[in-house]
């Protein structure tokens, strides 16, 4: 649960930024986003959802509505311009830690690390930065958290 300005508990919120061009993700994806917010006890602001119509996930799980990007937690920017916000580290840790524990999460890419579970129920593997492609993946997720579901 989250708290309002007066310290009263309330359900945690998942909201879309007005900059997100297509919020039409699958119902399972929105459920995962809400569960992530509830498990981490934070409000989430999402900046990107679906990027193509249809159910083909080739290229990105955004293309089939099975991914979302988080740009702010409890109103605090995760980062800006490929740089993590130092004031957001503990919030990012809570969210990426909560995502790590969720069975339905496939990709959990953010400033504090890159994890991927090949299928539901399998433990997520940490992706290192050993190749140029992986370093690029890390660099490209310092200012937001990318979450996709199985």
């Amino acid at each position: 649960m989250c708290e309002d300005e007066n310290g009263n508990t309330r359900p945690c919120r998942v909201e879309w930024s007005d900059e997100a061009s297509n919020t039409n993700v699958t119902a399972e994806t929105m459920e995962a986003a809400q569960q992530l917010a509830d498990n981490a006890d934070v409000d989430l602001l999402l900046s990107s959802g679906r990027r193509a119509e249809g159910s083909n996930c080739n290229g990105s799980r955004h293309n089939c509505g099975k991914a979302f990007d988080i740009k702010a937690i409890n109103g605090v920017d995760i980062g800006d311009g490929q740089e993590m916000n130092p004031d957001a580290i503990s919030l990012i840790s809570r969210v990426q830690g909560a995502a790590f524990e969720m069975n339905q999460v496939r990709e959990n890419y953010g400033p504090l690390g890159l994890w991927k579970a090949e299928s539901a129920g399998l433990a997520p593997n940490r992706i290192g930065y050993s190749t140029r492609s992986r370093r690029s993946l890390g660099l490209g997720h310092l200012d937001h958290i990318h979450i996709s579901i199985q």
Partner: protein
Amino acid sequence: MRLRKWILLPVLLLAACQPGAPRDDGVELVDTANVDEAEIMSSDAVVPVPLACMDVDSDSPETRTLTYSNVITSDITGDMSGLEFAFRWNGGVWEGTSRKAAGELGLPRPMEALLVDSASWSISFMIPNSRDTSRFQGSLSCDSLWGTYKTYRTSRDRITSFRRVDKAEN
């Protein structure tokens, strides 16, 4: 022989830097000691001018706008990440906007305190974000924007560059 090179090199460098000496880039240095104050006051240095690569006579705002970006796109998630800055010459005044990519490219936000010195092409501006203000100080050219960027109050200054792109990356 080696000793002669070390003696000659500073002398040659000094000669090349003398006011009035022709330079490879076609710019002639002016000996300011011989220029009267009125001439300095009326020089272009204090009057905003557009960059040479801008078509200021065009009716199209696009040709009066230069866009710089460090946005990258992940080949795995397709996510965009980075910043994009656009500078528009509008009736003798510089205007700037910033777009942040956190997954996808966001909406343009106006810059604050944009200062462009058309004599040295130094530039500074600020961008308010949710709880902080980012600050940039550096240089502008037709090819790139580079300088020091301080994203958050608690973050370190970092030297960064943005390449010129033809138009806003969508």
